[in-house]
């Protein structure tokens, strides 16, 4: 399979910005209105040099604790923000700098499903308006065709009866239904690639599996590639073909999903997998306890960034950042232990 998508050396730094206070006062008939105090001083290295490849029709997982930068990568890929450094290729074409027309084309080809189904639909739009919007934007089909297309895609994502949803508002729907609407909205323009940013994390456990199944089904039907972002390694295992484990803005291990689950090489991956009880009752491993919490990404430790929490940390880990080591075919990890 050909590489559909590739990310090379991606970096994103944010300035620290905080809204502090606002004041609203009229005094002596003289108005002093709200002031937003901000300061921009230090930088957060949210994504700090990330490279990976996604094949055509592959589901690629990006796994890590919250705050590790995986969501930022998703947003960088769909061009919701500009990378500080690095390149992103879609079909061999660098998408970091695009002209206005190219961008529009790109928008049609790459879609995104957001984590929060409660918030990813405009509360003032009906379901019809929400799902139809991409068609309006890209001027696809006549007015009648658009509505027909909306109805059919609603059917595809399993909202029954389709027509009854058209005039309803998001707040009248359940979380799972909303996420289906969001998926419908994304798929209606036939994208080549979809970024799914923890699409199931905010849903009830009962409907998660169903939603995941539906996504796999749609992937096949629409011929999609999916970049599946999640913090849940068991979810990644169920959905993805390949995956990468991220820690503090860097990939620590990547490869085929099965390879990593069965043979994790990085202590962090090991720790993540060891705490999931239902992975495979046959595999007996000791639980690995992680020490402390995730450090702030504005204050990344020297050396291997995992060293303060690593149970195997050595002197070299505190001095030098480890390189990527090939463990097996398509399976690399970055650790001094290897």
């Amino acid at each position, binding site marked *: 399979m050909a590489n559909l998508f590739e990310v090379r050396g991606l970096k994103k730094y944010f300035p620290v910005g905080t809204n502090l*206070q606002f004041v609203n006062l009229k005094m002596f008939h003289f108005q002093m209105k709200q002031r937003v*105090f901000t300061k921009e*001083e230090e930088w957060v290295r949210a994504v700090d040099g990330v490279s990976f490849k996604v094949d055509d029709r592959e589901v690629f997982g990006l796994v890590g604790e919250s705050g590790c930068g995986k969501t930022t990568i998703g947003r960088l890929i769909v061009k919701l923000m500009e990378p500080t450094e690095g390149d992103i290729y879609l079909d061999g074409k660098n998408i970091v700098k695009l002209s206005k027309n190219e961008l529009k084309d790109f928008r049609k080809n790459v879609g995104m499903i957001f984590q929060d189904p409660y918030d990813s639909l405009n509360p003032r739009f009906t379901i019809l308006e929400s799902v139809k919007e991409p068609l309006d934007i890209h001027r696809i089909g006549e007015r009648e065709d658009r509505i027909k297309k909306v109805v059919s895609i609603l059917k595809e994502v399993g909202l029954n009866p389709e027509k009854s949803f058209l005039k309803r508002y998001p707040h009248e729907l359940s979380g799972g239904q909303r996420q289906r609407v969001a998926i419908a909205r994304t798929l209606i323009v036939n994208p080549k690639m979809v970024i799914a940013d923890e699409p199931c994390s905010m849903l009830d456990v009962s409907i998660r599996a169903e939603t995941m199944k539906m996504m796999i089904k749609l992937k096949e039907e629409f011929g999609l590639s999916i970049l599946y972002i999640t913090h849940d390694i068991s979810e990644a295992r169920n959905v993805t073909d390949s995956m990468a484990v991220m820690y503090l803005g860097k990939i620590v291990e990547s490869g085929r999903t099965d390879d990593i689950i069965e043979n994790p090489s990085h202590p962090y991956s090991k720790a993540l997998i060891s705490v999931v009880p239902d992975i495979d009752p046959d595999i007996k491993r000791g639980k690995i306890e992680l020490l402390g919490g995730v450090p702030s990404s504005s204050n990344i430790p020297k050396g291997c960034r995992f060293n303060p929490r690593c149970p195997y940390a050595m002197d070299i880990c505190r001095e030098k950042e480890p390189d990527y080591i090939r463990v097996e075919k398509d399976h690399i990890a970055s650790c001094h232990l290897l």
Partner: protein
Amino acid sequence: MGRLRYPLRRIIEGLITLFIVMTIIFLLFRVMPGDPLSIVIDPKMTPEVKEMIRHSYGLDQPMFVQYGIYLKNLFTLNLGESFRYSQPVSEVLAARIPNTLLLFTSASVLSAVLGIILGRIIAWRRNSKLEYGLTLAGLFFYEMPIFWFGLILIYLFAFRLNLFPISGMIDFELWTLGATTGEKIIDILHHLILPLITLTTASFCGMMLLMRTSMVETMKEDYVEAAKARGLPDKVVRDSYAARNAELPVITAFILSLSASIGGGVLTEKIFSWPGIGYELYQATIGRDYPLAQGCFFILTLMTILAVIVIDITYAYLDPRVSYD
């Protein structure tokens, strides 16, 4: 260095703002139709004499030359010579600014104190009759035209009850014919009270409502709930836990109001014949005394900008929610 960058940026921004404002002021005074020297020039004078006067004030120069001189003078803080007083503007202002500061600082302090105390009370007793009553009464005074309120107070307290002097800042007879320093201080305070009451009554409500909102927000915080749960007396929770953290925005508003109130003082100073900078500005403007009016504008604008910058900068450093690790 990082710590210096922010204040530096704010100061540069402030300077730019000041420059823009002063340019607007300059242009405004120049596009005024009519002869700026018409208060100085008697129509009966011969044209030659009129020309002489115009020359002596530098008004026969082309506009851009005047603007250049104006900017240069501002830069060197030379505010020129008043037409009306034939006295350097800085001297006129130096005599007026303390009067204004005295009145408005004390009014701001008083209304902040009153606002904080009352705001604390009504926040604690939400939806009570007391809250509605105080809010309504406060708002009533707050929305009053201050000059109208001042007139009524003068009528009641100075005229009917004969408790206070009617106007001015000093008893001229006492001052010019010799009085001890103590007597002079008491005299000023005596004159201060009525305008002070007017200003305080008219403005405490702003502080009160701000304090209330701020208190209500803090009262939802966990540590206040925890304190309540520990069974501490209401008064202690209110005063020591909730109020203390709620006062930050009020203090900010207080600083802002200090700078803002001075410009709004025209009406108050006119009603009470208070010899302050606001009234001087009014007089200078209607009297076409450019240098003096420009000087007043300069000072007032500078004060506003300074206050805002000071607040921005101190906030950026003081607020515990933002830390530098």
